[in-house]
Structure formats: C-alpha cells, structure tokens
C-alpha cells in the first residue's frame, strides 16, 4: 500500500467570476521513504499540491488517502492532529516565531502536542545536538544565519518524527553553499526513512531527487523515476 494516494484531485479557486483550476484530475501515489521533487513553472499548481498533501487545503473533488486512511473527510481538528503527528513542513521563508529562541521554536510542536516539559526538554536537546545547533539554542531567529534558521526549521519539522517531510523551496532564500548543506540534511533524513517531498524551481536540486513530478497548468505532465530503472522518461501518468 502506498503511503500517499491521490485519486482524481480537483482544486478550483474562484477569482471574481472566473475559475482557476489549480489542480485538474490529479492522481499520483507515493510510497513511504520516497524522495520526490515537484517541479514546474509558476502557477502550475505545485504549491497547491503541497498544501493538499500537508492537509492545509482541501480538494474540491477526489480522494486523498494517507497511510490507507481517507483524510479528505476529516474535520479541521482531526486534520490538525494528523499534521501534528505525521507531517513536517519546511518553508522557503523559514517561518520561525521571532520572539522565541531556537530551542523554543524547535519545541513548539511538542508544546502543541501537550507533551510533559521534561520529555520536551530531552527531545529538544537531542534535536539541537543532531542539527549542530547546541551553541545557538538560546538565540532568537534574528541572531541566526539563514542556514541556521533553516536548520532550526528542519529540526522543528522533524521533532515529532513525522512520516513525511514537505519542503517548499527549502533553499530558495539561501546562498549556494548553505543551500547544499540544507539539501544534504534533508536527504540524510530521507535516507533514514522519512518520505521527502520537495517543491523546487531549481533544476539542480530537482535532479537530485529519485523521482520528479513535472507539473503544468494543474496537471501532472511527467512522472520521472531516476532510480532504480529509468522507465520511459517522459510518460504522462495521469493524463486527465
């Protein structure tokens, strides 16, 4: 059973009296532990897809099964619970809470989950160590470099040990060297078993993924698997 199964997903935005089809009849399935890059021009529906996968948005039609469970019918609070436990987000602009220290930012999901303070402290300390942020624990985001901020964000995204990590242009605000560092970090997490789905403009970063989804006008144009065997490179899997 695939970890993520999208079946006939439609997402329509209404702008004034015109309708914009952000996603049209999208069907795709992603297995646990995959490394997927979602690529395509602006307005192709990449971000909408990511929001749907992260349960931040609901499709107008179609079904989304996460780990075999249809999550499109869940209530907002139930979806929040799924997000909390199973999904980690990494954003282009980091989205750290400016008044909280690095350690507090990392611990935020644990606070929201209502974990006891000593358990929280233990896990945050471990995360700080894993991501090399021990010296920066009490620094606030404005006292951190871009790379450090994104490391804090990734530590926060993974502290609940989610099944999948959704990254929206994770290197978009970083210079090349720091970007590579962050990419390596994400790939390391993927190698440890977390499903990694990255939305990116950057063809270099996209090429590193073992599977690429090419979006255009809300449709999936190409589904390319670089490994293990390059099947027909440009086969539209879900035409309509």
């Amino acid at each position: 059973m695939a970890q993520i199964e999208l079946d006939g997903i439609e997402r329509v935005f209404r702008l004034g009296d015109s309708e914009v089809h952000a996603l049209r009849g999208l069907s795709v399935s992603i297995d646990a532990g995959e490394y997927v890059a979602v690529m395509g021009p602006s307005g192709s529906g990449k971000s909408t897809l990511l929001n749907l996968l992260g349960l931040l948005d609901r499709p107008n039609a179609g079904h989304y099964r996460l780990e075999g469970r249809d999550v499109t019918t869940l209530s907002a609070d139930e979806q929040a619970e799924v997000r909390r436990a199973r999904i980690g987000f990494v954003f282009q602009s980091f989205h750290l809470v400016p008044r909280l220290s690095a350690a507090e930012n990392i611990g935020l999901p644990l606070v929201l989950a209502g974990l006891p303070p000593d358990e929280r402290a233990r896990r945050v300390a471990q995360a700080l160590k894993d991501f090399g942020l021990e010296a920066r624990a009490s620094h606030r985001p404005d006292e951190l470099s871009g790379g450090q901020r994104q490391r804090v964000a990734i530590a926060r995204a993974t502290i609940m040990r989610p099944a999948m990590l959704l990254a929206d242009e994770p290197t978009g605000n970083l210079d090349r060297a720091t970007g590579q560092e962050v990419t390596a970090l994400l790939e390391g997490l993927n190698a440890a078993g977390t499903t990694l789905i990255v939305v990116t403009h950057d063809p270099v970063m996209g090429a590193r993924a073992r599977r690429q989804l090419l979006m255009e006008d809300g449709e999936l144009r190409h589904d390319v698997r670089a490994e293990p065997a390059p099947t027909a490179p440009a086969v539209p899997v879900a035409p309509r």
Partner: protein
Amino acid sequence: MTPADTLRFASRAALGYPLRTALMVLAMAIGVAAVVVLTALGDGARRYVVEQFASLGANLIIVLPGRTETGGVNPGSFITSTPRDLTVADAEALLRAPLVTRIAPLTLGNSEVSVGGKLREVLVLGTGADYAGIRNYRVAQGQFLPRDDPGRAASVAVIGDTLRRELFGNETAIGRVLRVGDTRLRVIGIMAPSGQGLGMNTDELVIVPVATAQAMFNTNTLFRIMVEVRSREALGPAQRELEKILRARRDGELDVTLITQDAVLGTFDRILGALTLGVAGIAAISLAVAGILVMNVMLVAVTQRTGEIGLLKALGATGRNIRLAFLTEAALLSLAGAIVGFALGHVGAWGIRLAYPVLPAWPPNWAVIAALATALGTGVLFGVMPARRAARLDPVQALMKR
C-alpha cells in the same frame, strides 16, 4: 496544549510587543484607576457627611415646639395658630417612655461673659447632666453639670476650651468665678476641644443648668428636647411613644415636631450613595472604552501575526489552541491593566486623603471589585472576536503572509 503552556505562550506574545502591551495596560489602568479614585472621592464625601451626623448621635429624636406642616392645610391649622411652649415638665414626662434612655432639655441664649476685665459675647446653653453623654462630648477637666433636680438653678458653668483660653489663659480655670449677664457662676468643668463638626461647637459655649439659663433669660420655654432612645431600630416605636405622651399633655393636640437623626442621615446617605454610583458609572465608561481598545489591539495582533498563526496551524495547532492563546493574551493584558489601575487608583485616593485629611477618601470595596471585574470581563469579552478570527484563519492564506 496544556494550560500552563498556553499561559506561557500568551505571556511571551504579550511581552514580545512591549510598547503595544504597555499602552494597552495603561489604557486599562486609567479606566480602573478612574473608577477607584472617583468612587473614593464620592464615598469619602458620603462617609464624611454620615460621620458628622453620627457624631451628633445616630439614635436621637429631637423635639421642637411648633408643628411643621408638610401635609398642607388640615382642620388643626384653623384651631390653633400659636403653639404651646415646650417645658421642662414635658421633658421630664418623656423619660417615662420605656424606649427612652436619656433626655436633655435645651435652652439657648446670647449673653456677655466677663472675668476680671475681660468681656466677650457668648452663647449660653442651658441643659441637663445627660447632655454630654448624648452628644458624645468629653470633659477635659473637672466635671459636667451635676445631676440635680432640673428645677434647681445651681450657679455652676462648664465652659468650652477656646473660651477657657481667652478668659483664663494659662491660669487654672476650675473653681474660678465668671459673670454671665448678671449671674455669677463657678466654673466646674472644661470641655475637651471638639475639633470641627456640624452644628454647635462646644469650644465657645458656656453650659449651665437648664433652670439657671431659664432664670437668666427670664423664660420657661425650651428651645429643644433631645431624646436618646435605646437603639437605632427603636427610633420608630420610640417616636410613637413620645407623640402619645406629648399629645396627652397638650389636650390631644400634637403641636410639636419630632425629628429623627436617622431620617436626615438616611437621606444624605442615599443622595451621596447615588452620587458615588453615578460617578462610578461615568468612570466605567472609560473601562468600556478600554475594552474596545483591547479588541482593537488584539485584532491588530491577529493581523500582525497572521504568518505565525498559519505556522502554528501547519504544526498541528487546533482552532481551540489558537483561540485560547489569543483569549489568554487579552485576559493577561486586562489583568495587568486592572492590577496597575488598582495600584494607581489607591495612590490617587491616598493623594486625595493627603490633600484633604478630613475626607475619608477610601474607595468602597464594591467599586474596586466591580472595576476589576469589569476590566477583566470587558477584556475577555472583547478578546473573543479577535481570537475567533485568528482560529478561523485559512492556513494557506496565513502562511503566504509574512
């Protein structure tokens, strides 16, 4: 999210914007302080008046000759036009009423007092031994009027403190003789300085036995009779007893007026109490304004922190988590404002007491509690709408904002 975490998160959020929080707290504090200070002022005035009246004795009935008509013309008004005098015998008769504890007949007149070469105009009060007790006057030296037969005109006098100083200076006054009009009187007591008070001031008074005064002024009427009854509750029944006795003594006609201290006191109490309430109401408007300010500030906070709210939702915060966090923040702002305002208000009341020591300007407890409750209530009430708005934000839209 545990309550402790919600509280910590909300307080961190409030402290994250110190200027905004300080201004908000100040606005709420001014509202609360206004209520505290203004009610302190209003209640201080009420207490001042009530205390002044109470110092006259709260369970007194004053009998004065003549009837005060308040019911328009009645048959009685055509029968007699001149009221009968009030006499010492009337006063004696009133003591027979079971609820009456003490009485003091009062005769008043102006005269000249002279000692050695010194001469001055004084008010002479003729009364009985119980007068000091009824009015709570204290005798500083010597004794008050002796408990004599009220018909006996003893040649003794008790004088006020100012009079003693002016007539005798630093010399001993007790046992000295002074001349009031044509009568020579021996000083047997000095009244303690009475400070200030409504009505008569004992400091410049010569107090003599009622018979002495009547002889002095060649009269046998009384100016007033002061009647002390057992308790404040007994005022009503006692008044009816007195009316019955007096009616019997005056051929069935009640041509005297009975005034209870309580009625006057009650009226003042009510008027000034209503005034305090009104002032508190006006001050409460500032609390309502502060409440609306809380709403405004919280709405700005929601807009300001839209990105953060989106993030919290992405991290798995439920609508309830976010609602509670914002509501807690509003409550904290109001609470801080209420506490600061409470302190400010007490400082203000203290300042008033310092500037006007006679005014017991203490804010009444009901006003303080009402002010604090209103502050918290409005803060939370006006915090609900912004909190709901925050909880309802669409996470995708919210995350796009920075």
